């Protein structure tokens, strides 16, 4: 047996080398497969990113248009108190342009929100200040300074509001 043991030791060593090579091959193959998979996944991710980029661009354009509606609203806020029918008719025309602009934004998927009387919700409203009015509920919106906008239920701009804070609760 001892004689047989001797020559056997060599193949064992070879086997060891072989297994190292096998192991290495496996590692390389795994790496290769992983690289291919990564590439394949990258292609998918790029597709998704393209879509999201499109949304971001779309959103970016809309975000730049929202102030136009705000400025129309501001203009109306300061409309002259003049009964002159010609002027009133002119204002009516401007109002129609404003409505048209809002319709365009709606058709592009944007939805305005924020109304006086709603209860303040910081997930969609931003408070710019407060007043106290016992007539209305605490934390209700007294005035909407700037309406908010959402696209597909996502808040892209919170509504800017003045909220009601009952004096007795402010010390809580």
């Amino acid at each position, binding site marked *: 047996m001892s004689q047989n043991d001797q020559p056997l030791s060599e193949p064992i060593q070879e086997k060891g080398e072989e297994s190292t090579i096998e192991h290495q091959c496996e590692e390389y193959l795994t790496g290769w497969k992983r690289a291919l998979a*990564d590439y394949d996944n990258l292609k998918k991710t790029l597709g998704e990113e393209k879509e999201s980029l499109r949304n971001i661009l779309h959103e970016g354009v809309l975000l730049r248009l929202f102030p136009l509606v705000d400025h129309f609203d501001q*203009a109306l806020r300061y409309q002259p108190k003049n009964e002159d029918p010609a002027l009133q008719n002119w204002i009516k025309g401007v109002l129609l342009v404003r409505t048209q602009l809002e319709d365009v934004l709606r058709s592009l998927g944007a939805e305005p929100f924020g109304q006086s009387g709603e209860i303040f919700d910081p997930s969609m409203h931003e408070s710019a200040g407060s007043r106290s009015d016992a007539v209305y509920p605490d934390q209700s919106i007294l005035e909407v300074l700037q309406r908010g906008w959402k696209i597909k239920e996502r808040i892209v701009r919170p509504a800017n509001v003045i909220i009601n804070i009952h004096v007795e609760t402010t010390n809580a």
Partner: protein
Amino acid sequence: MSKILGIDLGTTNSCMSVIEGGQPKVIENKEGARTTPSMTALAKNGERLVGASAKRQAVTNPEHTLFSVKRLIGRRWDDPEVQRDLAFMPYKIVKHGDGVAIRLGDKEHTPEEISAMILRKLKEDAEERLGEKVTEAVITVPAYFDDAQRNATKVAGEIAGLNVRRIINEPTAAALAYGFDKKVGQKILVYDLGGGTFDVSVLDVSEDTVEVKATNGDTHLGGDDFDRRIIEWIIAEFKKQEGMDLGKDPLALQRIKDAAEKAKIELSTTQQTEVNQPFISSDANGPKHLTLTLTRSKLEEIVGDLVEKTFGPVRSALQDAKLGKEDIQEIVMVGGMTRMPLIQKKVEDFFGKKPNVSVNPDEVVALGAAVQGGVLAGEVRDVLLLDVTPLSLGIETLGSVMTVLIARNTTVPTNKSQIFSTAADGQTSVEIHVLQGERPMATDNKTLGRFILSDIPPSSRGLPQIEVKFDIDANGILHVSATDKATNKKQEITITASTGLSKDEIERMKKEAEMHAQEDEKKREYIEHRNIAETMIYTAEKMLRDAGEKVTAEERKEVEEKITALKQVMEGDDHAVIKKAADELSESAQKVGAKMYASQEGQGAQGGQEAHGAQGAQGGTEEPIDAEFKEKNEDKPSENN
């Protein structure tokens, strides 16, 4: 194994990132934003708010809205920083043992608990985005944080349900995001101008560590100060124009804030912007409009001193590190404010080298934290680190132009082949002159090697198809081969030093290319026109030869005259004139060519095809392209002149 979340827990905003496919990637929060305000609040209805929603109600709920808690974490009550903040913070800070606590409603919370609320939101939002549980994190802290502050940050992570695998320095994370941890022996300066704080750190990269040699800063200087200055300027200008103070009108103030932000961003890319807010207010005389022009130079005047203020800490940090500014090899910019061109310019002027700004400065720290997380998770080990070619590689072609085969910043391993042809009739050998660099002229670039492919069967210029193949293997070794497609005869060369340039050498070459861009472009254009003209002459002459009797004497004369005219102007240097003469020749030659085609379809195809080939130069790799070799031992450029 779950992903390790890299978190930049900032004083004003926080950001998170994970490794995906070997690369760090920022994860958006639930609201779809890439950064989250580091704010928490207790709403009037008892609801706890974190992030943007906390920020949105801060004005009307200041006592129960907590921000900048990072300024308090891990500090003792008697710490001067805490005593200073007591006066500034609208919320209630109380003594809690030796440390501090914050009163929120009727409860007291430690800064760790408050930070944990932010971290928990980040964790939950990340889980929602990734669709898997996140239990481990790497969190960054300022380099100047002491053990107590680091420990407290770790505790905050644990309260949030995160196993904090490591706390790392913010500047180190920023350097990691740029991969600078591999630049052994380099000194890196990190310039971090955040929302409310300014930090500068000097890093020393060694074999397996990145050591912070010195740190300095200003805990009360940040982007918010810049914004405030712009808002104040707008209010003051309006007051000058209209005599009205808009600072007291909440809506007007909100609109000015938005306008100031927009102006600041626009002035990063333009020289001038309009602040246009119609109907901002009104008085007895009717509505008032805010219309101002803000130039970049005005903006720089408004905030110039704030920028200057950052260089005090920079100098101190260098002094503490016992380094001169020339010892700094890389400057990393962190914080959104560093997008401002003035800041980048001042930093560049100070150090005499361009700072690194390519990674989003709002996200670079979080990305670096994710990289560290990836290393800990073993993800980065599995991923082969791929290198890029720092400079473009190509060969010299007709007119001593460098034709690029592999553009700079291409990830290796990669290969690219292109088919070229000969520049003269009967040319039997071509020299492949392998070049590296960004300049269009061969002589301005670095020669990597040359070899000759000979024994090309003699034929008309433009006919032989010689495929040149560049192959860079994973070790950055470049193999260039040239094969004559007709005979399959092949010559090749192996260049080992293709990526072995030093950083300085690469920078110098890039800078030179930038500096000479304009004149190089002119030179390239000039040679291009000469090459086109030369091809035009060759094609026209060949066409006349081939045509024989098929052209009338009159037509022949016209083309010949145009050829003579073009040859004449080519003795001069005015490429506009050369181009004009070449166009005229082309027109006459085309007329004749068209006639030949019409009279004898098929046979005359040869000449026509070549003319077409010469004009439709930058085609695919299948067609012989216009960039031809100059023959060895043949003084092609001078012949062309």
